[in-house]
């Protein structure tokens, strides 16, 4: 009898078990593996395991010349390929002290914003799908297709463009570019109402996202969560405002800051940002000055020895490029401070104590792109 009484009483309520979300899981948007400790449906903690798509881009850059690096940055955050390229181009231009023509600056800014809208559209698709509303996926892709068509007409490809080169652009924009962009803005202003009707206003979606995964402003800054996710917490981190590049200083747009920092706020930030991007494009599209599409560049680009840093606002947050040059035609060390990498690190912190369904919603609202995390 004694032994039975002395048996340790195992509290079933407190028992934890682990599941592997990923590497092949529908809601991790790629090959990310999250080891989630669960108690029933409640997430106790999670550990991200990265590296399933690590290609060593930073190492590859050490062998490539600066124009060649462009095609690698395309493949980091493939949804905002232009913006990644912009960072490298700006860095090289800054190091070489090259002044690019105004036309190039205008085109780059417009294309960046188009790319941002396309990226947010895809985020909206996948967020809707994470929430279980599969129809969102098709509406978002339908409208993204219009942007990709514009891209294809001008740059020849739909996803990975390699359009910017250090010093300018690969080729001039297509003669129909301005007309098509204006047509797209008119079209998308109509269609974005569908987005609001279908998902934003939906009571199920609001119930599932409001008050879920709250990230305070202090934590957002400390974790380095930037982009729409950071701004939802009230962290003013828009590089376009604080360290303007391109012609963002000539455009009139608002940096919208959230207050609550929950999943719904992160959702709303991106919806607002699509409107702001359209505003920027509308202001610039008619004012593209005539001129050359590239500055005069040397055949072989050699950055003076030293170190350079360039920050741009990618669709998911702040992208930093850090280069240590030893005066050769390829960088000595190239580091990409990718927004998704920092945004992922906060996932464990904000998803503790929520349910599996919430974890999926939070992951969707942080909008991570795995190749950008792994690089």
């Amino acid at each position, binding site marked *: 009898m004694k032994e039975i009484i002395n048996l340790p009483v195992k509290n079933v309520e407190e028992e934890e078990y682990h599941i592997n979300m990923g590497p092949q899981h529908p809601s991790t948007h790629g090959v990310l593996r999250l080891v989630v400790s669960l108690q029933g449906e409640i997430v106790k903690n999670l550990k991200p395991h990265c590296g399933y798509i690590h290609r060593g881009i930073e190492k590859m850059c050490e062998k490539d010349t600066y124009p060649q690096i462009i095609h690698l940055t395309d493949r980091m955050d493939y949804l905002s390929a232009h913006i990644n390229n912009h960072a490298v181009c700006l860095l090289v231009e800054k190091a070489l002290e090259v002044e690019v023509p105004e036309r190039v600056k205008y085109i780059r800014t417009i294309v960046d914003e188009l790319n941002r809208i396309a990226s947010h559209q895809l985020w909206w698709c996948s967020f809707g799908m994470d929430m*279980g509303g599969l129809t969102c996926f*098709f509406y978002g892709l339908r409208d993204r297709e219009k942007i990709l068509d514009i891209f294809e007409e001008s740059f020849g490809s739909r996803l990975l463009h390699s359009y910017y080169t250090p010093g300018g652009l690969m080729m001039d924009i297509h003669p129909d570019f301005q007309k098509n962009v204006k047509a797209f803005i008119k079209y998308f202003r109509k269609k974005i109402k569908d987005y609001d009707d279908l998902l934003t206003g939906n009571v199920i979606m609001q119930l599932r996202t409001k008050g879920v995964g709250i990230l305070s402003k202090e934590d957002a800054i400390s974790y380095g969560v930037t982009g729409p996710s950071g701004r939802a917490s009230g962290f003013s981190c828009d590089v376009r405002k604080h360290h303007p590049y391109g012609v963002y200083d000539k455009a009139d747009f608002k940096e919208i800051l959230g207050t609550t920092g929950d999943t719904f706020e992160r959702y709303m930030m991106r919806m607002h940002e699509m409107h702001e991007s359209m505003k920027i494009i509308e202001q610039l599209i008619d004012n593209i000055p005539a001129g050359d599409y590239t500055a005069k560049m040397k055949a072989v680009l050699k950055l003076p020895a030293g170190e350079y840093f360039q920050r741009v606002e990618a669709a998911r947050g702040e992208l930093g490029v850090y280069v240590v040059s030893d005066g050769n035609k390829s960088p000595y060390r190239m580091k990409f401070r990718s927004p998704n990498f920092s945004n992922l690190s906060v996932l464990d912190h904000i998803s503790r104590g929520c349910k599996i369904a919430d974890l999926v919603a939070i992951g969707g609202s942080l909008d991570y792109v795995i190749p950008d995390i792994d690089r």
Partner: protein
Amino acid sequence: MNFSIYDFTSFTQWIDKFLYDNLPAFWAVVVEMTIIGIVVLLFYALVGLFLVYAERKVCAFMQNRVGPNRVGPYGFFQTIADLFKLLMKELVYIKNADKLLFNIAPFIVIIASFMAIAAIPFAKGLHAIDFDIGILYVIAVSSMGVVGILLAGWSSNNKYSLIGAMRSGAQIVSYELSVGLSLVTIIILAGTMQFSAIVEGQANGWFIFKGHIPAFIAFIVFLIASTAETNRGPFDLAEAESELTAGFHTEYSGIKFAFFFLAEYMNMFIVASIAATVFLGGWMPFHVGGWAGFNHIMDFIPPFIWYIGKTFFVIWVMMWFKWTFPRLRIDQLLTLEWKYLLPINLVNILIMAFIVLMGWHF
């Protein structure tokens, strides 16, 4: 025999009489059951295949797509091709799974929906059994399916499956209440639980119109609750492909997966039939009081068409739900049932009882 497409009673009675005249009683029953079995099986397979096709087409049109269009005209034979694919697929056996329960589970799910179909009247005189407690029987039998889902989730030895099965259990147990109570509202109005009598009671007007607002509320509640009971979106928490990959049927493959798949669509068909029978007048045509000519034209359409049309309308509404709404979370799902649907339902029954008591219904 005078056979007509408006009344199958004489037809079924003729078969019955023919069998009993020519065979001993025992064999007559056996042959009769076999015929019914084969007919139900065929019907089941046809409706299942058609519903899969319909779902794919409906969701495609809602999503600005064309949907399946490769096999046959407008892709009509796509599901048949899929069926052959599923039949030929390897059945994967899971290590450390409870083999017996793992294999039984899909059958339990599919048998539950088979049994429910027996009591549903497709047209006048066209039903396998006409119980006097038909509604009770259908509710009882259709809720057996959850046992299969629970077993499937548990025996798969997969954590995703287990979470899915547990969610499904909690969900079906609670939504069963709302389904039952919303039907009780109509039972009060109809005064019977026999399907044929319920349909006959709607000869002079469907219950959804006869019962004023309470009947309409009961219809809405029934639609929501039955969508939840069939594990369909926005209540598809048991599968929840973005959270649990495929939920309780993660580990199933080939024809066993097809059983779950088919059962889901048949359950949808069954609840839609019940909704059509109880609320929308079953095989009764649509009549407007005073419009004799219009009513005559409506009478001309065979009852079977009326029944199928109404059922498919309800199914279409359920598909519309699925392809519009995001998924609920498990706690919100239970909140919806216990804090909204159940109290509304109870008040609704009281009002309905009061209306019937005072004789205010049509």
